[in-house]
């Protein structure tokens, strides 16, 4: 598995960008100018907002919210939904992502003025994230997307716990997925016209922003990704070369100890 591929082995970071386009897609559909792919994508987004977003909106407290996020990250259907959406979204890569301030404005009635301010404060981070996602995904899609997505479908959510993926990378990918799911929770409340309880709105926005930051640590480390130092200092970005080297050594150790333990345990069994 190459370092470049790690960025998209879980298409988590794709989701915030995609969700940000939801309002535009609705307008296109309403104006009957949407393409077949755009209609399908909107249906998928609405499905995910209702099925995955509702799960989060039913949280009782902070721990329950995190349990629900962890559960969603383990669910194969959630993972496969992400892959399907990513595949369908290819024609949308030409679109400009929605700016964070516009997303905040749309979400305002659901999350309240305090969380709108929190999103606005994080706007440089969110905008940089959407921009770099789009750039990298466009490049990725042009290269070997079909093979990669097929491979990803086969692996499923185990990619986030696999010993073949360095833990920092897995944590970063999980951050992207968490951000996407949190965004879906907010989108669901907007869709229903409901007001999210203040504590839940605060936690969803916090996970959206921290998840984006976690994922951007990986994306910004990709060759060609342009993320301003003011948004994410170089020291916060993953050092993929060092991580890759450490990971290879660690895998050799695991291989060696596995072989020794297997001989011993199976002999004694």
């Amino acid at each position, binding site marked *: 598995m190459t370092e470049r591929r790690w960025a998209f082995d879980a298409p988590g970071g794709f989701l915030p960008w995609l969700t940000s386009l939801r309002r535009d897609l609705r307008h296109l559909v309403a104006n009957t100018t949407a393409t077949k792919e755009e209609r399908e994508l909107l249906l998928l987004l609405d499905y995910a907002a209702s099925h995955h977003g509702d799960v989060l909106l039913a949280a009782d407290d902070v721990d329950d919210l995190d349990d629900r996020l962890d559960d969603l990250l383990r669910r194969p259907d959630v993972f496969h939904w992400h892959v399907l959406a990513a595949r369908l979204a290819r024609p949308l890569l030409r679109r400009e992502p929605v700016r964070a301030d516009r997303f905040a404005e749309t979400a305002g009635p659901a999350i309240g003025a305090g969380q709108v301010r929190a999103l606005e404060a994080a706007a440089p981070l969110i905008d940089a994230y959407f921009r770099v996602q789009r750039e990298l995904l466009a490049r990725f899609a042009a290269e070997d997307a079909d093979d990669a997505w097929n491979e990803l479908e086969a692996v499923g959510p185990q990619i986030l*716990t696999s010993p073949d993926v360095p*833990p920092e990378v897995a*944590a970063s990918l999980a951050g992207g997925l968490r951000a996407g799911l949190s965004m879906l929770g907010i989108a669901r409340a907007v869709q229903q016209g409901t007001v999210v309880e203040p504590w839940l709105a605060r936690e969803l926005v916090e996970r959206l922003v921290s998840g984006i930051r976690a994922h951007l640590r990986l994306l910004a480390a990709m060759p060609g990704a342009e993320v301003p130092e003011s948004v994410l200092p170089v020291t916060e970005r993953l050092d993929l070369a060092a991580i890759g080297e450490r990971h290879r050594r*660690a895998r050799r150790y695991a291989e060696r100890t*596995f072989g020794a*333990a*297997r001989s011993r*345990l199976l002999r004694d069994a």
Partner: protein
Amino acid sequence: MHEGGTVWIDLADKRRPGVVVEARGELVRVAYGTSNELPGTGAVVVHPDTRAGKKFPLVRTTYFYGANTGWELPDGLHPGAAECARDLFDEIRRLVEEHDACVEET
């Protein structure tokens, strides 16, 4: 038994909490915790009253060290109450991987 599961393992006459960090063939690799604090040694600390601690569930503060892992037969393990909290799993894996790489280097 699968990666990310919590388990209990009997070691040195004590039942210790553990996390499966790798499942491979007939064996699983478990990172196990201890109540002993080793000052100066990098550890992941988990308190029983936290979300992560309740997944085992822990009864006392537990320290996970990178060196404290072992390949085990699943038959000798007892399942924990719930899946390991995602963040804790990543932290433990990172500590274990840093230890493994360090040993392999020397």
